[in-house]
């Protein structure tokens, strides 16, 4: 696991009267314990990866409360697990990254919400939208609407988030409907504080088990029950939810002195709206705003009575709604029309239709809106000229910076130092140079970075574990063999069935490269069935190779990834092989990040004990390097960088290996495989040398010293 929460999970034990100081994800977990959940689960993915890590690190605490923790195979599995709450009074929660995870889960979600729940069912979705997002940009809101799952979007403030978790379970039970809690990236990583309450053990749990199965055909998705379920959803559960939201005041109104206008914001957008008003001189540090604000901690369903009450008497409102389509703005129009209210609705006319609503975006949107509604605010003392001036003063430095700086080069994430996946793409690049480009169906995972410079390898990405499935028609219609890349995380998530089994079944002829690095590395190195190092909670010995053979893969080769020449040879062989059928190459080497995390403390301890340890790293002779950087174009390793040449004649920077090098060997392999240049050397540094080491080194130094010429000139 990338990060250990062993220390932080102590916060989950806090009692009534104590204050929690910590991260948003941990606060949500604490809120689950305060709500008396019976089971939890999910599938990792930023920004809620750490929630899965926290759950796993908190097994002891969970165990005391009898809570079951499941590391689900996929989001579909996690959603299906919520089925436990259909018939039984069990509160349960699962978490995943959205919208991609919700996409995977949507089959189970539809069935779950149609059947309805007895026990509270909460889905914590990490909305991966905007800066730092690593997925396609869509909204989870659509899923809530289509399946009638209630959607909470709490103000990013830990007490509010915790309250919404607790109230979310009550809402779920009051309306027999699953509830989604949407947390944006920054809210997940939000560090703040809230007043803790005692944890609650559930009525039924691993400690107090269920005895009697419950059967009710009305909860089965077969006609005629399904027709009744649809009606119950809109006739019973929906009004029940609205009643609960209203009575418990889940949405919040913050009054202001300028009653003619108002701002309606998704809960998650509240702080940004307040900050914009602060910057324009219309609110103070505590959020006391001259303009009234209606914060929607529940963005689905809306409560028409509340909306009507807020808008009544207002000439105009601004809807601050991040993402598109503008579901909320559209719904607002409908509600006002039905209520025959003449309040003008602004929203996407002032704010952008697409993209994250950062501080800058909301600031300019609010400024633009204030200008549009100036006739209504002027008598309340808001001077449009001063708002405009404030806005221009705030945004002028960016324009000046653009003049001074031009365009600063982008710095996207990429493969880590010594990553075992890099050599595979170096090998592919070599084959590309030799034989021209070939089609590569890529997949989701760290290996998607192959599409970035310097490799630019990978033609399509269709979803997690779907690389091989996405290659089905390509494979059939290309004259040359095509290649698919899949990670081991994707393999277990989806790839084994929809990819490999299907390709074998259809007698496809493609080449599949499985990156076997042992973890779902991109999400923070969580364990998967084939991980080498399992905890006591997980079953070991589930091998990819046996699974492949079991479903009839006949052409299977395993290559240690760092052997670039070998990898290129096997790829060439697969491309030219007369064998008709799926050819699988397993690129085998452990995630370097995780490997270093494991061996660094071991090495440090060995050194401390005086043990002999050989440290390996690579280097470049700068007087041999000519500064053409072709090695970098085949690697991109962060540790293989450039530096100004110390040679006064050379104008171009020379290649250079910095001290972060972990000695993975790729540099030497590429120098050989690509016939690059003789500048690279490998240095093996013998730490804590023994007597023999010292003797032989001394002897060699002496003999070599005799052979060494007098230095023709100083090169220092």
């Amino acid at each position: 696991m990338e990060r250990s929460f062993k220390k932080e999970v102590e916060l989950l034990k806090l009692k009534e009267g104590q204050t929690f100081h910590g991260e948003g994800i941990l606060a949500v977990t604490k809120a689950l314990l305060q709500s008396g959940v019976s089971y939890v689960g999910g599938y990792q993915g930023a920004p809620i990866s750490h929630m899965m890590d926290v759950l796993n690190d908190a097994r002891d605490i969970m165990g005391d409360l009898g809570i079951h923790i499941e590391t689900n195979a996929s989001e579909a599995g996690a959603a299906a697990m919520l089925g436990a709450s259909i018939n039984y009074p069990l509160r349960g929660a699962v978490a995943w990254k959205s919208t991609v995870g919700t996409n995977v889960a949507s089959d189970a979600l539809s069935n779950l919400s149609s059947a309805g729940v007895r026990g509270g069912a909460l889905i914590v979705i990490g909305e991966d939208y905007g800066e730092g997002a690593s997925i396609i940009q869509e909204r989870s809101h659509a899923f809530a609407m289509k399946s009638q799952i209630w959607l909470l979007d709490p103000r990013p403030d830990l007490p509010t988030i915790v309250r919404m978790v607790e109230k979310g379970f009550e809402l779920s039970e009051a309306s027999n409907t699953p509830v989604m809690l949407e947390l944006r990236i920054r809210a997940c990583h939000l560090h703040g504080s809230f007043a803790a309450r005692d944890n609650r053990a559930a009525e039924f749990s691993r400690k107090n088990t269920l005895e009697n199965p419950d059967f009710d055909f009305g909860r089965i998705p077969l006609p005629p029950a399904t027709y009744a379920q649809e009606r119950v959803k809109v006739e019973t559960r929906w009004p029940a939810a609205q009643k609960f939201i209203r009575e418990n005041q889940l949405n919040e109104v913050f009054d202001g002195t300028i009653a003619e206008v108002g701002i309606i914001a998704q809960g998650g957008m509240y702080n940004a709206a307040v900050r914009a008003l602060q910057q324009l001189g219309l609110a103070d540090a505590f959020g006391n705003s001259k303009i009234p604000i209606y914060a929607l901690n529940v963005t689905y369903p809306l409560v028409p009575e509340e909306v009507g009450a807020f808008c009544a008497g207002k000439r105009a409102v601004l809807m601050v709604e991040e993402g598109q389509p503008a579901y909320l703005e559209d719904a607002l129009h409908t509600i006002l029309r039905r209520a025959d209210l003449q309040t003008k609705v602004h929203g996407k006319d002032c704010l952008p239709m697409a993209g994250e609503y950062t501080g800058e975006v909301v600031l300019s949107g609010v400024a633009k809106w204030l200008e549009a509604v100036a006739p209504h605010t002027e008598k309340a003392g808001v001077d449009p000229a001063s708002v405009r001036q404030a806005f221009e003063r705030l945004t002028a430095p960016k324009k000046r910076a653009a003049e001074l700086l031009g365009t600063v080069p982008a710095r996207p994430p990429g493969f880590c130092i010594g990553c075992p996946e890099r050599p595979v793409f170096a090998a592919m690049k070599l084959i590309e140079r030799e034989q021209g480009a070939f089609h590569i169906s890529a997949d989701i995972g760290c290996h998607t970075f192959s599409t970035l410079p310097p490799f630019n390898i990978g033609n399509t990405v269709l979803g997690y574990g779907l690389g091989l499935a996405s290659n089905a028609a390509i494979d059939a219609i290309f004259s040359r063999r095509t290649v698919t890349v899949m990670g081991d995380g994707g393999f277990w998530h989806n790839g084994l069935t929809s990819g490999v089994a299907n390709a074998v079944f259809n007698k496809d002829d493609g080449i599949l490269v499985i990156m076997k690095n042992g973890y779902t590395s991109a999400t923070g190195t969580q364990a998967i069935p084939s991980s080498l190092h399992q905890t006591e909670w997980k079953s070991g010995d589930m091998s990819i190779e046996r699974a492949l053979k079991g479903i009839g893969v006949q052409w299977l080769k395993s290559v240690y990834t760092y052997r670039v020449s070998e990898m290129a040879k096997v790829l060439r062989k697969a491309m030219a092989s007369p064998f008709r059928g799926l050819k699988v190459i397993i690129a085998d080497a452990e995630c370097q990040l995780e490997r270093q995390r494991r061996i660094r403390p071991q090495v440090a301890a060995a050194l401390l004990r005086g043990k002999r340890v050989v440290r390996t790293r690579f280097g470049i002779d700068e007087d041999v390097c000519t500064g053409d950087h072709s090695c970098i174009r085949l690697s991109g390793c962060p540790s293989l960088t450039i530096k100004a040449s110390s040679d006064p004649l050379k104008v171009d920077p020379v290649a250079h290996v910095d001290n972060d090098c972990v000695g993975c060997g790729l540099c030497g392999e590429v120098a050989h495989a690509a016939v690059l240049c003789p500048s690279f050397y490998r240095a093996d540094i013998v730490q804590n040398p023994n007597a023999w080491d010292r003797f032989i080194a001394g002897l060699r130094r002496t003999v070599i010293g005799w052979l060494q010429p007098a230095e023709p000139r100083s090169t220092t």
Partner: protein
Amino acid sequence: MSALPERPITILIAALGGEGGGVLADWIVAAATAQDYPVQSTSIPGVAQRTGATTYYIEIYPAKTSGLGGRRPVMALTPAPGCVDVVVASELLEAGRAMQNGYVDERTTLIASTHRVYTVAEKMHMADGRFDSDVVLKAAGELTRRAVLFDMQAQASAAGTVISAVMFGALAGSGTLPLSREECEAAIRSGGKGAEASLKGFAAGFERARGERTIAPEEKKRPLDATLCSPVQRVRQTFPPETRAILGEGAARCADFQDSVYANFYLDRLEPIVNLDRAADGYKLAIESGRFLALWMCYEDVIRVADLKTRKSRVERVREEVQAKPHEPVHLTEFLKPGLDEFAAVLPRWLARPLKGVAGTTGLANKLNVGMRVKTTSVSGYLLMRCLAWLRPLRPLTSRWHEEQALIDRWLAAITAAAKRDTGLALEIALCARLIKGYGETHKRGKGNFLRIMNTVIESDVVSGASRAEAIRKAREAALADPEGRKLEQSLEAQGIAPLPPRPKPVRFMRRNDRKAA
């Protein structure tokens, strides 16, 4: 109740993944929490990988929570332009990015490390793709309230810690936080592991920020050689002062590569060009011709590489670079893969030519590369390399020598001919030698590009008059922008020169016309 602060203090940390930006944010939060200030931090660490640009954002409301009567300040999750008090950047380009995003203005204190971690785009450029650090430094000087700039990476290494500790020290020392030095140090101590080293780094950063010194990043060039061999003396006596530094270095390099006769030959070749150049232009043509002539004349054949790799000073340099302690033995392995070309290069012409011919027609040229791992710290490996280096006196007999000298003469003739009419044009021709570098395939491609420009724009009259220098410059830059050479062809096409077709690539894939017929 006394008047409460109008707004929170806002801090933006711009870092690279894995640099400990999160640890820094945690320290700040811990220190503020210990002082009972309302504090909030957020981040976008996103993916687990260790390389991309990332940010952390913190707001501290500088009034004790206990005095707020239960009221909670509303804090933002994203920085907003005109609303950032401190930007702390772990690297210079990231400081530039924060400015580009509008987060730096006259309210902002910018604390940034001046060292560079180059982006892939900058690194993979065929020549020099580095973003100009001075641009960032200049912008920092103009846009900020105050800029605290120094090499934090160097300070961190010196203290044996990570850069985040130095950043925290500089932040604390800048006086922008409502936190004292002791309060910040307490936060580091409560973090436990590695606290002592972190505190050392913190102290270094703190003191630097207090001193308000601004240091530009320095590029260390080796001081020019002081040893006086006779060709170098000749430079001092007969060449214009502006040219002496580079020409002296060039002459010394040639002497080191071959002998002092060769160094004199270098100066003989340059003399006519220097005579045509003018002091008014700062002898730019003479200097650049001298620079590239020296690099070219000291081309990297196996003899040269073996020589450089078996010098005493090299072992010392490597030991320093890999941070080996004096008592630790270091074993060095060289990765060599000489092929037919390298072999033929050291043979006399009459042997090399037929050999290359046979290899070319049989397609053996690409197959004869032998991957060798030579241990230059073992006696046998060293001896092997040294034997190659001992071939130096025989170098003038080799086929490569003749090839290079002929092409150099052709290039010099073009420069001299142009210089008689237009030194600007001659300079552009001289600079084309920058294309020739690397080994093996890279070298071949570079030389191919050079020859293509020679044949089309330099030695023919397709482009004439004033636009010629410009055409050469554009062609050169295009050749350096694309390793495949397509951009060069496009650039030439713009001058009315028919482009060469892309080089064909052999298809070794299985053709599958017959499959799936069923």
